[in-house]
């Protein structure tokens, strides 16, 4: 872990130095990268605080039993349906879904359901799909969803049971 920290610090300072030098010397590619960095950071800042506050509220208010019942080992096929419905309301990109999936897991959701949630958060967010259909047509979106959702659920089940057999556990306290 220590070595990784050093690599990270060196990388970060190299990047920062590169941006500062580019700005000072008027090196255009560096300025362009700096602009990308700023605009993307701003986009993140709009979404992330809200997402993490919701995660905090979720941790405090939602009972473990509720999650176990609907997303856990005994939830059966309904767990997958809930995961897809929940994912369709996700805002932002898959990067917002990672911490949410992790919180669900900590509250007792099973692995297959978690992976379904992640996959579905990538492909069937409602606002995004409407947007997609308006540019590429309803037929395109319909085929994409009908093909990908069963594949996501199926592979998530397989991946979940494979990892469960291997006694895979996520690191706590992230």
């Amino acid at each position, binding site marked *: 872990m220590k070595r990784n920290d050093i690599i990270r610090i060196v990388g970060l300072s190299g990047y920062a130095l590169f941006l500062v030098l580019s700005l000072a010397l008027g090196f255009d590619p560096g300025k362009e990268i700096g602009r*990308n960095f700023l605009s993307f950071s701003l986009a993140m800042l709009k979404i992330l605080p809200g997402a993490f506050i919701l995660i905090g509220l979720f941790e405090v208010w939602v009972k473990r039993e509720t999650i176990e019942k609907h997303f856990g080992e005994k939830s059966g096929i309904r767990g997958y349906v809930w995961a897809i419905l929940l994912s369709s309301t996700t805002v932002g990109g898959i990067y917002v879904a990672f911490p949410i999936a992790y919180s669900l897991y900590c509250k007792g959701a099973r692995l297959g359901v978690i992976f379904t949630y992640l*996959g579905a958060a990538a492909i069937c967010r409602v606002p995004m799909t409407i947007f997609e259909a308006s540019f590429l047509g309803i037929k395109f979106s319909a085929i994409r969803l009908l*093909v990908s959702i069963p594949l996501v659920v199926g*592979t998530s089940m397989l991946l979940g049971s494979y990892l469960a057999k291997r006694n895979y556990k996520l690191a706590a306290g992230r």
Partner: protein
Amino acid sequence: MASLLANRERTRSALKIAAKRFLHIFPAFLTMIILVSIILFLLPDEVISDYLGGDNIFIGVILASFLGSITFMPGFIAFPLSGILLQRGVAYMVLAAFTTTLMMVGVLTAPIEKAYFGMKVTILRNVISFFIALIVAVMIGLFFGEIF
């Protein structure tokens, strides 16, 4: 807000959890933002359009799925871009490969995924997602009559 009215103590601890979680994952997010800023410079939209507009549809699909995997683009940019490419005659199949890998496969979001789920799961999930995207592209190609 409702939470604040219902119980002050619990709301405070929720905010504490939120801050702690956010700070913990912050380095991974920073890594991702840095990677994105560099990739967006190396592969701007125009370059991607050039790559996707080739003549051979199968090479197009392979290129599109690799580009979709390594780049990062929010939907409100990706779909209008796809709409423009469609009008320029790019196949639905190529666009399906591009948008689906863009959504499901994340080389750039891997630092975050790894921090939560570990390296092995991150690789497995992304490889599986890549193949799902290829299958989606082929099915789109079949339904739109682009393969036969």
